[in-house]
């Protein structure tokens, strides 16, 4: 109740502006489309497309953000963000993808100096088109100095995006109403891309909940799979992926002690709790095998056998900790070129997630 009262005065200032205090979304609505300032030539199709999925941690590299990594910072300098984006762009140029599925891309956010990272990446890579779907948009988050925020998922491609839609994912149900109001609204971004000689090609970027302690993650993965199943049933071709915040079946599920910050103590209760939000993958009965249906149904960049090995881990909470779990995936209903699945673990300073790529065969 005290939180509600203290926020009243903030709301008073911004409630009557031309935009809402916190932006909410319809179940399905159009995504925001972008074009590069200058177009780059699209290479002649060679019957295959290189797909890249990457959570770029809003272009701050490994800087100690307060929301993760035991960090103590909220607002980065323009130079810090630009430097990090330059390295991200260089890595993208090296991988040379045709389609990128991004998560955690900022635009109009105080924490990253309001840089429109979608436009910046378009203008500083060989990509030509992008679609953006916000997962966190507010005039101000009156906490920790976060201020204005707009962050979300992106599909970026050399080929024209014909249309794109934002599909809302269920909100967390383990938060009070006020926190939920100001919290993330995660989504699936589905973009129809004009691939030559194909009229039904889609790219899908997803970012599932990280910190929910209820079964919200189950709902997110179920919704994601339903979207893919509907496309497959309709005869569409898709590549889909992103940060599912889930470990592959058979992988380690408890990272509480590994991720603990100084002074944190976990696993002291009789039932094994408490656990660190985002670092524990057994919050509900079948969470450890949450991704099994996706593996059972679709082709993937990294096979399940390989996914549980250290070579394909894609996340660690700080750069001085080696990649210790896999959270990032690519699925498709086309064939994946043999040996093309790659986890770029050398990119450990570029984000808290490693980029993952593969080549899909169009015929």
């Amino acid at each position, binding site marked *: 109740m005290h939180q509600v009262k*203290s926020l*009243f005065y903030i709301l008073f200032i911004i409630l*009557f502006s031309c935009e809402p205090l916190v932006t909410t979304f319809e179940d399905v609505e159009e995504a925001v489309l972008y074009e590069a300032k200058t177009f780059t030539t699209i290479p002649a199709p060679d019957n295959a497309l290189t797909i890249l999925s990457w959570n770029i941690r809003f272009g701050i590299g490994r800087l100690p953000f307060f929301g993760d990594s035991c960090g103590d910072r909220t*607002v980065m300098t*323009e130079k810090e963000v630009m430097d990090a984006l330059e390295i991200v762009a260089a890595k993208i140029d090296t991988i040379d993808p045709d389609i990128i599925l991004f998560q955690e891309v900022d635009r109009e956010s105080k924490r*990253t100096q309001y840089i429109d990272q979608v436009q910046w990446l378009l203008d500083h890579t060989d990509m030509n088109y992008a679609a953006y779907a916000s997962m966190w948009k507010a005039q101000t988050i009156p*906490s920790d100095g976060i201020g204005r925020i707009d962050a979300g998922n992106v599909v970026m491609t050399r080929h024209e995006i014909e249309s794109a839609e934002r599909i809302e994912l269920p909100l967390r149900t383990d938060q009070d109403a006020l926190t939920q109001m100001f919290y993330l609204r995660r989504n699936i971004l589905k973009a129809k891309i004009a691939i030559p000689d194909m009229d039904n090609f889609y790219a899908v970027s997803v970012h599932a909940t990280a910190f929910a302690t209820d079964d919200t993650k189950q709902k997110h993965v179920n919704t994601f799979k339903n979207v893919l199943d509907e496309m497959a049933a309709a005869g569409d071709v898709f590549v889909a992926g992103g940060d599912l915040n889930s470990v592959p079946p058979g992988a380690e599920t408890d990272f509480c002690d590994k991720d603990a910050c100084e002074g944190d103590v976990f696993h002291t209760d009789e039932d094994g709790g408490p656990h660190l939000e985002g670092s524990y993958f057994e919050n509900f009965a079948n969470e450890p095998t949450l991704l099994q249906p996706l593996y059972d149904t679709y082709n993937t960049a990294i096979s399940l056998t390989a996914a549980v090995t250290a070579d394909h881990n894609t996340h660690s909470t700080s750069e001085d900790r080696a990649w210790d779990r896999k959270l990032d995936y690519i699925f498709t209903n086309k064939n994946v070129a043999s040996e093309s699945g790659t986890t770029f673990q050398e990119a450990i300073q570029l984000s808290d997630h490693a980029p993952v790529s593969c080549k899909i065969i169009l015929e």
Partner: protein
Amino acid sequence: MKKIFLIAALLSQALSQGEWLSGTAHTLSQGRWEFGLFQPVRWGQAEGREVSFYKLTAFLMPGATVKQRWLQRYDWTISSSHSVYYPTPLLKMVTKPGIGGMISPEFEIPNMVSVWNMVLASKQLNNDKILTVKAGMALAFGGSDLAVESTIDLPLIYHRLAVYYNNWLLRFGSDMDSRLNEKWTYLVDGDLFIIPGMKGSFALEHKGMVTWEKSSRFHISLGYKMVYGQYPDGYPNENITRLHILPMIDFAWSRE
């Protein structure tokens, strides 16, 4: 309760700084006091000299204003106002982790002082109307170590605190005070803040208020404030403009 007070204090400072119905060149008669919920406490310290201060921020953002009347001839009154503010305690209180943290705790808030100097000229247009024009400059000292990333990018607040980041700013304005009848008056004003050399370098504020004078000692005012301001932006732009409209209410008491 502490959080409520802190934020209310910050906003009352922003909402009422040198404005409201005290925006003319006229000074209170000697010995008269006026109190408002948001507007400053005003005191006619001497004939032609008025002292005012903000009660909500008296401890967290100490400050005071002296308005001195220099000329009163025919229909014209010319005055100058001089204010000094020490915002450091209030800004330190909102620099914190968690709810209510308007500034990230990673930033240091140094000791800073600002001085606002304005010249005001009021002309009695007829028995019912007073037109006031004003111009001035604010200077700040001690803000050189203040990180530019620590700004609070909200209407009313950003452009008033900008002086501490930029060391100076210019302010221009005009007010029209008018009487509708025995019990009702209205105020229409406009203020322009210019902060040369800083991102988000201007704000145009306009206010409209109607006041019901229940008696000579108690007024109720209702109205709105519109802020069209430029704020910091990033690639591909340097700045972005936004419009906000806020409802306003105030209660004022006076005594001789």
